[in-house]
């Protein structure tokens, strides 16, 4: 177990180092998210719907789509020069490769969230108060679910003809329980309800994370040639 995790961490560091060099995917995702905040605001009549009611849905829709941008790149980098073969030939288990990729994606999504959530609070004048901590928990749980499913489908999609179309098509149905859970929980917190009322949604997110992190880690070796 320890070996798997340390190997995963090594692979995650490699991916993050590659991304950090150019930061292009990260910056694209951030700009996409910020532009999304802008467009969504102008899409509604602010006198008809209070911005604090819109904010949770807007946030999570944006994260879903900007997350897809980063996820696509995750196995995309391995396609050049068959770099994936080098990874597969190295003495790490298939599960560590998956977990390493997923960890790197998690760092990516978390970094986008770190910029987008404060931007949302500022642009939409949200009463953050003392809900910052539970909000971070929701964001993390949701990110884990997005990344588990997204990393697996990214590994599959990159080997197909329609990679860019296929990744959203495969992943979005799986993102829906996460988006519903995160949006509802965020809405409860932002409207000042006690954290306990968001409890059912947090449990849904946690259950989803446990089931799909396990299922996707176990499924990953089946996406590789023998």
């Amino acid at each position: 177990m320890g070996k798997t995790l340390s190997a995963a961490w090594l692979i995650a560091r490699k991916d993050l180092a590659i991304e950090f060099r150019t930061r292009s995917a990260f910056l694209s995702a951030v700009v996409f998210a910020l532009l999304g905040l802008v467009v969504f605001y102008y899409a509604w009549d602010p006198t008809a719907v209070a911005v604090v009611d819109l904010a949770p849905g807007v946030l999570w829709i944006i994260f879903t789509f900007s997350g897809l941008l980063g996820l696509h790149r995750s196995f995309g980098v391995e396609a050049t020069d068959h770099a994936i073969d080098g990874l597969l030939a190295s003495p790490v288990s298939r599960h560590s490769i998956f977990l390493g990729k997923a960890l790197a994606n998690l760092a990516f999504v978390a970094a986008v969230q770190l910029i987008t959530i404060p931007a949302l609070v500022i642009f939409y004048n949200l009463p953050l108060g003392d809900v910052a901590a539970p909000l971070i928990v929701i964001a993390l749980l949701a990110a884990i679910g997005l990344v588990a499913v997204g990393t697996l489908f990214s590994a599959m999609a990159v080997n197909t003809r329609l990679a860019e179309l296929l990744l959203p098509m495969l992943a979005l149905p799986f993102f829906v329980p996460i988006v519903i859970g995160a949006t509802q929980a965020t809405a409860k917190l932002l409207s000042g309800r006690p954290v306990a009322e968001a409890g059912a949604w947090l449990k849904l997110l946690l259950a989803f994370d446990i089931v799909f992190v396990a299922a996707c880690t176990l499924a990953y070796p089946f996406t590789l040639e023998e």
Partner: protein
Amino acid sequence: MKISWLDTVAGLAVVGTVVRAAFFTPLEAKQGAAQKIFYIHVPSAWVAFLAFGLVAVASAAFLWLRDPRLDRFAESSAEVGVIFTSVVLITGPLWAKPIWGAYWAWWDVRLVSTLFLWFIYVSYIVLRGAIDAPEMRARYSAVLGILGALLIPFIHLSVYLFATMHPMPIVGKPSAPSLPNEMLLTLFISLTSFTLLYFAFVRSRYRYAFERDAALANAAQHA
């Protein structure tokens, strides 16, 4: 196209069901003739979920045994399943508009689960279409088939939680009626005939898949 005995029996059974439902089953008191779509809608929903359950089982069995027949069966069941799911999603809103007053209800667990079943079926078929190598196609579809089966309970739970936290009245929603015997019999007949139809379709589709794979293997050998 060769029509087998199963095709004939299934076809006749479905025609018989429609005739019985239309002419020999009593009208429901509150809904009138609109209720009769029930005898198409419910068996289609049953077959849709049966088909996907079998796709999931065949997928798991394929990853374990690597028998291409299991993959061919999953492929066939998925294509047949998407048709029945589409029938459910068309007949449902057609019935719901006059009876409930709305085409769709996002807090209805069964409706939304069926919609997601449709999404998964479609992405399964598109995934298969995007991979040429048969072995990789079989493995990837099997993974999707299993994960898709895991997703449906979560959709179910999400919508259920959503509905309990935001109770919304549907105008004029009838509570589930207890069916008199004649209607129950028609329902049972329709379930049986649609299941027969499912097997007939899957068998034809499987035969097509078998012949296609044999032809491709032949071509590869002589190339």
